């Protein structure tokens, strides 16, 4: 009962905070609300016995990526807001597409199948600690996808560097 109440709070707060983040006019305020949002997401991970994910969520997203966001936001003149003309004029068209997408997602939920329980039950994870279990799986069973993800990130970093350097030369 208490666990459900906690989850209800976090689920509700995450939705409300996400809406608050995208409706702020001031980008710095948005970033600060998003920081609060990340804390709530990390708490949900903690409820799922995934303490490593919770810590990494805070380190990578809150401590790393959002700070870089903040740099960009601060160094760009927010007083002179960039005005971009809307892609689609009529809001009714956008609403129709959004509603249609929602219906498709809702329908696809019906074919949702619960995966067969694997080796790692909650008890086993608690006994072996989440960090160890995750590390073992990532570096044995899922080594190949893991390395591919690393390669993709490296390509992105090198790409960003090349683009920035080219801009500097011209």
């Amino acid at each position: 009962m208490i666990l459900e109440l906690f989850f209800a709070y976090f689920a509700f707060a995450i939705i409300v905070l996400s809406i608050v983040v995208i409706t702020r006019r001031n980008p710095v305020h948005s970033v600060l609300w998003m920081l609060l949002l990340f804390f709530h997401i990390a708490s949900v991970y903690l409820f799922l016995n995934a303490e490593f994910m919770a810590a990494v969520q805070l380190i990578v997203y809150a401590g790393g990526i959002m700070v870089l966001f903040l740099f960009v936001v601060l160094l760009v003149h927010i007083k002179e807001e960039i005005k971009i003309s809307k892609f689609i004029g009529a809001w009714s068209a956008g609403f129709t597409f959004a509603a249609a997408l929602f219906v498709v997602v809702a329908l696809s939920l019906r074919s949702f199948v619960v995966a067969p329980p694997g080796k790692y039950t909650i008890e086993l994870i608690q006994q072996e600690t989440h960090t160890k279990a995750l590390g073992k799986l990532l570096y044995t069973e899922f080594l190949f996808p893991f390395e591919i993800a690393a390669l993709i990130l490296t390509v992105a970093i090198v790409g960003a560097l090349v683009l920035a350097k080219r801009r500097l030369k011209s």
Partner: protein
Amino acid sequence: MTPDTFIKFGIDVLIIVIKIAVVLVIGLLHVAYATYFERKVIGHMQVRLGPMRVGPHGLLQPFADGIKLFFKEDLIPEKADKVVFYLAPVIFMASAMVNLAFIPFSHNFIIADINIGLLFIFAIAGIGVYGIFISGWASNSKYAFIGGLRSSAQVISYEIAMGFSLVGVMIMAGSLNLTEIVRAQENSIFGMYAIPQIVGFVIFVIAAVAETNRTPFDLPEAESELVAGYFVEYTGFRFALFFLGEYIAMFIMASLCTVCFLGGWTLPWYVLKVLPFLQHVPGIVWFLIKVYAFIFFYYWIRATVPRYRYDQLMSIGWKILIPVALANILVTGLVKILL
């Protein structure tokens, strides 16, 4: 739930609250006297006496300073973003204080003994950057803004080097739990990881100084060019919150160094073999001695070393510390596999 489990739960909560109160009070007293000893130590190093007026040898000076700060007028710049301006020192101070919960002070005294204590310290320390950053932005002043930008760039650069320097410790101990890291050191050949992990230790010490914005890496507060850096517009007790947060962060870094490299509350076995009577001394004494030594080191280099230039600071961090730390991880991992 039966009433029995309720009572048990209540007692657990009470014990935690008492522990938190003890750590907070002792921590704040340490901060107060850290400022006093900083002025004394640097004074004597520069052939001065330091504070002498309030109480014998100026011993009551921290309280005089605290009371003075408490009664100062609270000023807010007219064009400041008020809510964010209020929030910034709170975020900074809170993120420093939360980390006190994860430090094992002795073999049976820790507020939250969690499996990934080391990772959580990094996570919370990362939040502290926001306090610095948004205080610089919300003040709406040039000096504060440049100080905030410099500081956050510096902190996130050196956070990487610091995290990498601790990976060697994680590999050797095989755990992220700070208590277990200390126990693993107790049972290792050298008794403390500062000897086999000397490379990581040196990187950690350099990064810890940069991370807390202390001399010689105190560019965010470079008074000759930036007045005081990101907190220049803060007055009275809001300024005191930044001040407290910085000193608590110093103590966190010193404790982290003690726990991860200097063996925490334990002594190496070879010392105990030579002087066996030392094992009757409570562990908290050794812990505090190691922490004080690290804090003294902070004062010492502040009195000795001149400030770096900003580009020098960045090239030390990115071109020397991070590659060396990565090499250290590789070597430590190879040795661990081969042995």
